[in-house]
């Protein structure tokens, strides 16, 4: 007689009815979702804001064009900016085809989302003192994204209703000592370290966000200490630094080297500094 021992087929051990599992899964899903939302925010910050800004910038440019067409330019009258509206065009040939941008009056967030904004208390283009402009470095079309690539003597051309003002970037740190205009060539004519109260005003610096004195009429000097007739005609551009952060500010200073009046009948005439 053969006896077989039969082992009953075992069913897999019953799943422990764990309460924890769905909770853990839910938590994991929430974490993944939050990660995706953060990624989407980065995309929004760098790309989507630029789409909104491009529309606003185009609208400001169109308004400015119409104003310039309807209002014949009067060279004697200085430009009269209206808060939140464009009043000048900034051309920076060294920064490539993204330029020119229409510069608007004011530096509040909504104005800056439409393009570079003029610090309302600073000088106007061409005036003695400091024509100061802020612009985004990342997102919102990032007009000043590549400000760190500017070199001394690069042209910063400001177009108003009646004039072209050619500013050029001042000598950078390290170039000030032994700056020889002869050696630098024609491109740099009119550019040199400015002495006196302007000592220490460099082509490009990085400062703390609280250093608002860099946009004073004479950068770094308290307002009103230098009489107007002694002031140079400067341009100052401010943006975030490092890129994608707002920890510090990058400051670019330029000095006015040339001025061309616009010719009303020949609007296609452009300064040679802009190239072809």
């Amino acid at each position: 007689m053969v006896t077989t021992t039969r082992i009953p087929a075992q069913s897999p051990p019953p799943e422990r009815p764990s309460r924890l599992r769905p909770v853990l899964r839910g938590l994991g899903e929430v974490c993944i979702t939050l990660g995706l939302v953060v990624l989407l925010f980065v995309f929004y910050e760098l790309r989507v804001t630029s789409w909104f800004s491009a529309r606003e910038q185009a609208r400001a440019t169109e308004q400015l064009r119409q104003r310039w067409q309807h209002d014949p330019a009067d060279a004697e009258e200085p430009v009269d900016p209206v808060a939140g509206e464009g009043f000048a065009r900034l051309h920076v040939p060294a920064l490539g085809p993204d330029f020119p941008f229409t510069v608007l009056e004011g530096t509040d967030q909504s104005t800056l989302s439409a393009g570079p904004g003029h610090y309302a208390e600073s000088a106007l283009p061409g005036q003695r003192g400091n024509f100061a402009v802020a612009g985004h470095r990342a997102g919102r079309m990032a007009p000043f994204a590549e400000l760190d690539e500017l070199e001394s003597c690069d042209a910063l051309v400001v177009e108003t209703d009646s004039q072209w003002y050619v500013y050029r970037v001042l000598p950078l740190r390290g170039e000030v000592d032994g700056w020889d205009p002869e050696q630098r060539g024609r491109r740099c004519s009119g550019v040199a370290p400015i002495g006196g109260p302007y000592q220490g005003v460099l082509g490009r610096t990085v400062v703390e966000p609280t250093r608002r004195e860099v946009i004073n009429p004479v950068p770094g000097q308290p307002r009103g200490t230098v009489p107007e007739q002694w002031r140079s005609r400067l341009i100052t551009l401010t943006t975030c630094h490092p890129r994608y952060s707002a920890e510090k500010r990058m400051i670019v200073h330029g000095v006015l080297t040339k001025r061309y009046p616009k010719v009303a009948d020949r609007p296609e005439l452009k300064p040679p500094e802009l190239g072809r």
Partner: protein
Amino acid sequence: MYAWIWRHLPGSVPVKVVQAVVLVAVVVTVLLFVVFPWVEPMLPFTDPTLE
């Protein structure tokens, strides 16, 4: 969470897929056009001006 949503979508699988895609699109749109523009000014990333 996602499994729960999937189970509660009505209809056959292709219909569910379409609904899921629409849901994702709605969420993304609300984030991009409502939530992010509202949140952003409170974050310290983008101020290029001097204080």
